[in-house]
């Protein structure tokens, strides 16, 4: 990948002989950011609030987004200060996503503050519409999403530059929350205002209620061409790669919540005059899950660090993280439902929100199988 975004702070802090070793720990700054985001989400996006929101016409909580994106400054983490952001890196954005995974609150963070932001950063415009939009996204004033199906893998980025502005794109994540749509066409990348009279955003019924999907139809819409096909292709590829890489951190946070809640519940729930968490068959399943979660943490941190430092190994680190963390998140959510027994099947308990998010995440930006194909290509382990 050509575009390196944000200062490579963690790499610079290390001694030369350690330069090739990823920093897999959390810095104090990152832990402070985590505390702030967690407190905000606990206050404004508890499970009952999230369930109620998914049943409303608009699941997005504008005040929550303003506090997260603008107040805490989370939307601008990837953007250098001189371009209107916080000048942090993917490592910090990954911590925000861990917390959003723990909360499954509907917020266009991954789609706008990561993917759309990375695309604009990669265009490297110092002024003009792309630079202005980037500053707006970084400040949390506006949100933008890439008008492609959520399932599009980074490996397919070259095929995304096709067609014209006259089109319908189904399965666009967070389109309903976006002020701007980034539309790849064979002429290059357009920015289209959602409020443009030629734009229709029709909500779909999504499997994952906490990350709404929409069908975007453009008929006679006018857009601003941000970049021609060459730079647009590279920028979309960068956006999808970062999206896939940081999605691993969301999956980690989600899995961690599922494990923590399952441990808590099975310690309290009694059957046969014992806490059910004292039965070995259940303990082993939770211990196994714990091992998967700590492993997912190493994989997700490695991907975030590789993106942050502009490492040439980033595509492999991302493919490994996605191939691994998707499975862990789904497994954790499935175990959470099962080990909660009947409670886990109810609408009232939030376990279902996590299962739906985990399963949808396992398709987003490419399935584990697609990422394994990338691993095969990058490690020279070809198919027969």
């Amino acid at each position, binding site marked *: 990948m050509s575009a390196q975004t944000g200062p490579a702070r963690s790499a610079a802090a290390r001694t030369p002989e350690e330069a090739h070793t*990823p920093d897999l720990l959390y810095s104090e700054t990152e832990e402070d950011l985590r505390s702030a985001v967690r407190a905000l989400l606990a206050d404004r996006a508890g499970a009952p609030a999230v369930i109620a929101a998914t049943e409303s016409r608009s699941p997005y909580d504008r005040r929550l987004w303003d506090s997260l994106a603008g107040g805490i400054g989370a939307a601008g983490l990837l953007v250098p200060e001189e371009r209107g952001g916080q000048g942090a890196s993917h490592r910090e954005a990954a911590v925000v996503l861990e917390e959003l995974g723990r909360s499954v609150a509907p917020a266009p963070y991954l789609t706008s503050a990561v993917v759309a932001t990375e695309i604009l950063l990669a265009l490297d415009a110092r002024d003009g519409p792309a630079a202005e939009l980037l500053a707006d996204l970084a400040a949390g004033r506006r949100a933008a999403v890439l008008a492609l199906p959520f399932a599009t893998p980074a490996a397919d980025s070259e095929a995304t530059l096709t067609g014209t502005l006259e089109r319908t794109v189904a399965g666009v994540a967070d389109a309903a929350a976006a002020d701007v749509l980034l539309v790849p066409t064979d002429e290059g990348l357009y920015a289209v205002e959602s409020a443009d009279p030629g734009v229709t955003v029709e909500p779909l019924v999504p499997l994952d209620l906490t990350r709404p999907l929409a069908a975007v139809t453009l008929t006679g819409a006018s857009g601003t061409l941000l970049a021609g096909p060459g730079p647009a292709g590279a920028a979309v590829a960068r956006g999808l790669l970062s999206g896939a890489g940081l999605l691993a951190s969301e999956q980690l946070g989600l899995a961690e919540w599922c494990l923590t809640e399952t441990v808590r519940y099975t310690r309290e729930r009694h059957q046969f005059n014992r806490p059910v968490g*004292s039965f070995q068959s259940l303990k*082993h399943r939770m211990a*196994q899950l714990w091992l998967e979660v700590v492993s997912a943490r190493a994989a997700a941190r490695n991907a975030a660090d590789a993106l942050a430092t502009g490492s040439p190994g980033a595509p492999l680190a991302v493919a490994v993280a996605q191939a691994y963390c998707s499975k862990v998140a789904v497994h954790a959510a499935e175990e959470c439902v099962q080990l909660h027994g009947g409670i886990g099947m109810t609408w009232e308990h939030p376990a279902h929100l996590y299962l739906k998010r985990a399963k949808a995440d396992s398709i987003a930006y490419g399935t584990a199988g697609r990422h394994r194909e990338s691993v095969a290509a990058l490690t020279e382990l070809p198919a027969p």
Partner: protein
Amino acid sequence: MSTTTDAADIRRRTQELLAAHPPAATGRTAFLQARFDAGLAWVHYPTGLGGLDAPRSLQTVVDAELAAAQAPDNDPRRIGIGLGMAAPTILDHGTDEQKRRFLRPLWVGEEVWCQLFSEPGAGSDLAALGTRAVRDGDDWVVDGQKVWTSSAHLARWAVLVARTDPDVPKHRGISYFVCDMTDPGVEVRPLRQITGEAEFNEVFLTGVRIPDSRRLGPAGEGWQVARTTLMNERVSIGGARVPREGGMIGTVAKTWRERPGLRTHDLHHRLLTLWVEAEVARLTGERLRQQLVAGQPGPEGSGMKLAFARLNQEISGLEVELLGDEGLLYSDWTMRRPETVDFTGRDAGYRYLRSKGNSIEGGTSEILLNIVAERVLGLPAEPRNDKDIAWKDLAR
């Protein structure tokens, strides 16, 4: 004292050792003895016992300097039990006299150690052990049988747990000894295993007399001492930095690249899944190592052995299938008694069979899952029916 000063100080001491005892002109044992006496054997050990009371992380400075000078090392693979288990236990629980007597020849490799813990009737439930030690004057007289003892046929010394009081609950009546493997009454018999060779032994103890001065820790409190040994047994991971494809996955990946004719779609799918899991396990180990260096040890170590056991088994199983016709063959069933444990060497069939032990030795995967569940996740313990009952009254 800042860490930088320490590193520079240790580098200087290492250079002084090399100057006084040039590796090319010094015998292996003599060099290792001089290194021990210079406090550069294990720098975190006390001064006078092979160390300098320095931070453990500084050992890497010594190791790097000595490796660059091509100095001999003490072959940790051959004396792993002494280094990894006996030494920390002696350091924590031994008398000054015991530390002075045992640590230097142990580290230099002049004396090999083994561990007389497991018994035919006490494996995972180690505290149920039945080998008896009865006090007789200044000695203890030991009778019983141990099993799964690696290096027993090479060992000069053993750490030994034995029952000294059958009338109290099982964890309370155990004492911990250092046993001289050359004493009369110690009989070592090879235990031939699934691979065809005898890497382990059975050890029969018949009227073995151990002087009380070779008891480690108070009589009856051997379980606490044994816990030090067991904890160190499982903390063997985390020190070394492993390269990508550094373990068993590297062997099978190499075969895959070199022999396209063996490839099938099913094996490709499984290989890639395992490749990803092996890479993630490597990263998890690296993260654990970084936590240790940063002085924030995480609980990940408890789980690493579980992950490696499963991966080794699945990867070696896949490798046998990948090899097809060759997978039907085995290199050599001749009974042998190897000096070192060799998990990744030799051929695919051997690796497949040997890796079956990875989920048993040093704590079965089932026991380790219990430990993670109870100590890391805080889940309630299973109900027990062996507490507060004298060992002699337990059903066996």
